[in-house]
């Protein structure tokens, strides 16, 4: 890929960059939003699951995660393609719905597994001190789950950035994402340009991930979260 992308110096890279500029911004914005949604919902479901174990709910999430992307896309079209839900179906919201539906199991699992490792005594001591459920969650549970939350966020971000199968079936007019654009262009573009498009996409995702990790490191230092 690297050889092909650089076969004409940086010309292909520059061209790929200019072709993908808009999609990089859109993908970054939507994938970040999707990752925030997924990690917060994952946190909420992990906490609730620890309180009230529901095998059926967990299995349903796993089943949706295991669905082939095309089937998930068809299900979304069938459900949301109606006048009353057009505000979702004809806007980027449909992409967020698709990602949350598909990847909630992953973020919930990451957070639930970490939560299971926290001794229940941590919360019991707080209750004995008179802390409310919210105060206990906020001051004891949340800081101890913070790293797992960030892992869930990163994994969700990567999934959302790279998702093609469902997104290509439901993306609304005027909203194009990185994988969709590359998939569309590769049909007619020379191999060297396709490689350059992939390389730019890869570098961009890597750069954003590095940025997130840097921000997280600063937050951790400032808050003392473990």
């Amino acid at each position, binding site marked *: 890929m690297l050889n092909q992308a650089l076969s004409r110096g940086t010309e292909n890279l520059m061209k790929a960059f200019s072709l993908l500029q808009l999609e990089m911004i859109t993908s970054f914005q939507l994938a970040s939003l999707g990752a925030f949604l997924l990690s917060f919902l994952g946190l909420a479901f992990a906490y609730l699951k620890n309180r009230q174990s529901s095998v059926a709910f967990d299995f349903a999430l796993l089943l949706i995660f295991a669905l082939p992307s095309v089937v998930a896309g068809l299900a979304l079209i069938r459900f949301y393609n109606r006048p009353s839900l057009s505000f979702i179906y004809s806007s980027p919201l449909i992409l967020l719905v698709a990602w949350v539906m598909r990847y909630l199991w992953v973020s919930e699992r990451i957070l639930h597994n970490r939560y299971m490792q926290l001794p229940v005594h*941590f919360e*019991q001591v707080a*209750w*004995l001190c*008179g*802390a409310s459920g919210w105060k206990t969650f906020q001051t004891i549970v949340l800081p101890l789950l913070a790293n797992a939350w960030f892992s869930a966020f990163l994994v969700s971000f990567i999934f959302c950035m790279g998702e093609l199968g469902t997104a290509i079936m439901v993306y609304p007019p005027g909203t194009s994402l990185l994988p969709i654009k590359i998939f569309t262009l590769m049909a007619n573009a020379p191999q060297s340009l396709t490689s350059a498009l992939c390389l730019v996409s890869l570098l961009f995702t890597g750069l954003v991930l590095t940025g997130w990790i840097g921000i997280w490191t600063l937050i951790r230092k400032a808050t003392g979260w473990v």
Partner: protein
Amino acid sequence: MRNIALIDITHYYRNKKVFSGLSLQIPSGKLTCLLGASGSGKTTVLKLIAGLEVAHSGKVVLGGETLTEGKDLRVPPHQRGVGYIFQDLALWPHMKVWENIAFGLQVKKVTDYRQKVMTMAEKLQIGHLLEKYPGELSGGQQQLAAIARSLVLEPKVLLLDEPLANLDVKLKKKVIAQVLEAKSAQGLTLLYVSHDHREAFSIADRILVLREGQLAAAGSPEELRKAPNDYLQDFIEL
């Protein structure tokens, strides 16, 4: 007076009967040791008193006040004036020692909490450790920090669930001395769970022995030494 009484307690854990009509008394201002083999229900007794578990039937009474009757939780855990030190100590790893100790005071909106934290830390000789995280402390220092976190709330009853199990003898003596000093100073009622009968007989004012959810023996160390029953003889090899 902060006598504790468990009256006719029946309790199940995951459909397994733990207690069937258990009754026992814990006298006020004394150190009572709860002895028993693993699975005899020692920790469950502490949790019932603290309100972290509720019995299926029976009463838990503290200082004449009924805390729970059957499944009816009349007094919530934080209003019972009970401190609890867990076997794993449960110090919050993301908080410094002073934050661990101050947490309960801050929750109760005590204005001079800093002063109280300092006083308690000095009393337990851990004043120099306040800015450290629990992970940076030795085992003994962690025990003292956990004790400080409980005592700073001035409980009337302190429940200790084998908190010294992992300490060497020298440290154990030091921590026990601190606990006994607090007992005298604050008039604490102490309930100390242990499976080490030598430790129990050396520090306790009164000993209760549990066997498979039943009270197998009760009395002062002298009384039990003089008239041990068969189980006690077998359990502690008197």
